[in-house]
């Protein structure tokens, strides 16, 4: 029997080799032959000068319009640049296209000095006019910016000075976010585009100020080539000559390419990556051991506050107490994420967390206590051991996460199981993504949304805790396709007042920010409109075979991601820090 099997296998192998040999005798090119000597220089990217990345792009690169949130990897950050960089790990703003930015004493006028010697990639000079033009673009509806709700006017007073005048009570936090998030566009090119086309224009091979220029793109890749005339080239050059970003396909392909050293930086989520990191394959992550990844956003359990039981804060607290996030962190994620602080604030916002105040308010996993809390709030168990609504009707809560999100699907099963152990009948389901979104969003006629419970992580790491509180407490309740805040439908005017006050607090005024955050934490932990569970990571794993000196806890502490918004959060520095590995002798 054993012998028979071997014979069959060897025959299979012989057949395969024979077939491949006859069908193609010349196919000996290796996947990334390092720049084949005979090749024309324009058609190949020498391996030693090329950084291969993947993880951002979920479909073919199809627009390079920096105003479109769907723009190809690197359009904002590599090609178009922002006035400042913001490093969330150090909480520092670095002037980038700006040389400086200062408020007047009344804090109603902001003066931007632009950097000298910056040129657009078509060799025109970058001036204050470009900055003023970009701010004023917000008046076009399709641009989808609310900048002009707090900015009164922006004018270039000379070639290198922009004066931005604000309306009463400027939204300082949002403005500061705009400063490091929004790309500056060349007036001499964009002023001729018609308003209605401003977003439709795919802008391939556009003109930017950044360290890279468009080289080519196809359905499975996006290629950038270094702009040697970049303003930072003399003092702080970016190392890779080419950046090839590969569109995400099957996970197995991306992991195989990473292990084979064909991909240098992968921002994909790989289940069980901690085993590979510890397995001696040369793959490294930001931290050498748990949690391996930096925290990128908070995954929260969002209850629909229009549903019976879920609208009761005491019930929500019992539900939070019934869930065991440690279990999700260890068994589902293999320790590549961390349990979230009950305040929901990311580790980088630790200084805003009022630990003394929060300690008695925080919830933690305790099935027995959850049962007691339910009983105390008047929820009695029915014949099946599950609690019923206060009016005695059966209580069944459906938890939805998108199909195919394997980590979340495992997490929701664990949540459902632990909730059931405490007597709360939570049922885990995983409809397709669009169904989850349709159930989650409030219809435009402002009726109640359909869902009971969902998991969500819309708020990404950034410069201000305001974003998180705006997400939790936003009023009036948003609705429709663009809804991205307050899914739970929580109405608390005091809290919303505090959030607005926080938005209007200058970023330098840490004392006021902390005090407002502390008050918001008290409301959040008392009422628990959402239940923070764990921090999703900035997934990032690197092969060190061609490039080294990637960001790490013990080395260069910068964001290691190619995702939207991360280049201007310091990831651009990763490209200046990289070192080429000398070829093996």
């Amino acid at each position, binding site marked *: 029997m054993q012998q028979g099997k071997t014979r069959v296998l060897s025959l299979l192998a012989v057949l395969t080799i024979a077939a491949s040999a006859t069908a193609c005798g010349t196919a000996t090119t290796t996947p990334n032959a390092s720049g*084949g000597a005979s090749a024309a220089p324009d058609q190949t990217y020498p391996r030693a000068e090329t950084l291969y990345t993947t993880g951002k792009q*979920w479909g073919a690169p199809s627009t390079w319009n920096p105003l479109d949130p769907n723009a190809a990897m690197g359009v904002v950050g590599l090609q178009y640049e922002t006035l400042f960089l913001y490093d969330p790990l150090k909480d520092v703003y670095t002037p980038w296209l700006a040389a400086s930015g200062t408020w007047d004493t009344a804090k109603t006028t902001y003066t931007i000095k632009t950097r000298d010697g910056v040129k657009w990639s078509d060799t025109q000079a970058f001036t204050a006019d470009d900055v003023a033009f970009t701010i004023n673009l917000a008046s076009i509806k399709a641009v989808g910016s609310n900048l002009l709700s707090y900015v009164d006017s922006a004018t270039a007073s000379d070639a290198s000075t922009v004066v931005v005048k604000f309306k009463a009570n400027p939204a300082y936090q949002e403005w500061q976010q705009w400063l490091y998030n929004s790309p500056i566009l060349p007036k001499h090119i964009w002023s001729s585009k018609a308003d209605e086309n401003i977003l439709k224009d795919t802008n391939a091979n556009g003109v930017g100020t950044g360290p890279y220029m468009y080289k080519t793109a196809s359905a499975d890749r996006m290629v950038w080539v270094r702009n040697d005339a970049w303003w930072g080239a003399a003092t702080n050059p970016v190392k890779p000559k080419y950046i090839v970003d590969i569109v995400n396909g099957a996970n197995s392909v991306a992991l195989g390419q990473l292990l084979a050293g064909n991909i240098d930086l992968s921002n994909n989520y790989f289940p069980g990556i901690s085993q590979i990191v510890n397995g001696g394959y040369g793959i490294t992550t930001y931290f050498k051991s748990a949690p391996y990844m930096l925290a990128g956003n908070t995954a929260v359990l969002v209850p629909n506050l229009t549903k019976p039981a879920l609208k009761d804060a005491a019930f929500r607290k019992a539900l939070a107490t019934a869930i065991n996030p440690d279990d999700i962190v260890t068994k589902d994620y293999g320790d590549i994420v961390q349990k979230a602080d009950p305040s929901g604030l990311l580790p980088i916002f630790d200084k805003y967390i009022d630990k003394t105040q929060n300690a008695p308010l925080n919830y933690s996993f305790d099935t027995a206590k959850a049962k007691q809390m339910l009983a105390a709030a008047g929820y009695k168990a029915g014949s099946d051991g599950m609690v019923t609504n206060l009016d005695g009707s059966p209580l069944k809560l459906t938890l939805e996460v998108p199909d195919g999100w394997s980590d979340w699907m495992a997490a929701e099963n664990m949540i459902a199981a632990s909730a059931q152990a405490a007597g709360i009948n939570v049922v885990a389901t995983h409809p397709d993504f*669009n169904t989850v979104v349709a159930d989650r969003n409030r219809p435009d006629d402002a009726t109640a949304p359909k869902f009971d419970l969902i998991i969500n992580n819309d708020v990404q790491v950034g410069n201000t805790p305001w974003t998180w509180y705006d997400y939790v407490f936003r009023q009036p309740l948003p609705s429709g396709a663009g809804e*991205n805040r307050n899914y739970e439908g929580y109405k608390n005017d005091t809290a919303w007042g505090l959030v607005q006050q926080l938005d209007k607090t200058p970023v330098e005024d840490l004392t006021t920010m902390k005090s407002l955050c502390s008050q918001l934490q008290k409301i959040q932990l008392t009422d628990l409109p959402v239940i923070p569970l764990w921090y999703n990571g900035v997934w990032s794993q690197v092969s060190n075979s061609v490039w080294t000196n990637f960001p790490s806890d013990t080395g260069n502490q910068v964001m290691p991601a190619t995702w939207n918004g991360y280049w201007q959060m310091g990831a651009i520095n990763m490209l200046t820090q990289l070192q080429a590995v000398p070829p093996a002798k």
Partner: protein
Amino acid sequence: MRRYFGRKLLTYTLTLFIAATIDWLIPRFMPGDPVYGLMSRMGNNSSPEAAKALSDYYYNLFGLNQPIWQQYLNFWGGLLHGDLGRSVFEHGQPVTDAIMAAVPYTLALLIPAILLSWWAGNSFGALAARRKWLDNTMLPVGYILTATPYMWLGIVLAFVFGFTLKMFPFANSYGLNLEPSFTWLFFTDLVAHWMLPFLSLFLVMFGGWAIGMRNMIIYELDADYSRYLEALGAPQRLVRKYAFRNAMLPQITGLALQLGVIVAGSLVTEIVFSYQGVGLLLFNAIKSEDYFLLQGIFLFVIVGVLAANFLVDIAYVIVDPRTRVGMRGGTA
């Protein structure tokens, strides 16, 4: 002859109309709203006022703000002009462009794989039917190959010949370090990337055809006409020639029936190898629930399978004299 093809053409046109209508309907029965999905997926972090402006823009771009009957008429209107609408996920890129960019890769995989495996499988099967030792080894291998899922064989080939032996690249349709050009370097690279996906399709299909042919030949050699020819003292070669021609007919029908399955097989193969064909495009369209792209790809597959079936119909007329006799009103 004209009546025969006229009838066939009518059937195909009707099938196409019904299939295209179903194709248009299915995505619209899918729950959810593509613009909701799109806005949510792109990590829309703008303020609610700004997000509203953006979503209005997208509804308008995709024509989803029109009544449903208008959308159906637009679909046929566009179709007759070769316009399949715009891809939702790929920022309003015309669907036709996206499919046309992918089609050459899929055809370059499918056509050689189908024809070569059919030819090689049938020849090999016919040979195996007459050689005892070949039959003994051929049969189990054929059974294993034909029962292997395309995707699984693809992963095995990628692991063995791509990852471990490093003989062939195992991802993308050409080197990540190359740009398409008319150079020897690019051509060899293209062929190298084509090799493993081609092989995984070829091998599975090869097994199926070989087994089918082997069984048919054994059956035909036992048929009365073969025995009669033998009894008349006809040379063995002649007997086998007639047996082969008769055994071929079911294989041609089989090819027509198999086309749909083969197309589906190539889809998963492309996913395994990140091969930039229609299959990978479909995979991405499903993942992002891209109405128009999905619809366009299905339409392409429908038209492709119908056209291939039509070709097989014509081939049948040429190969089987009885069909021609039938068309002239005679009886075989």
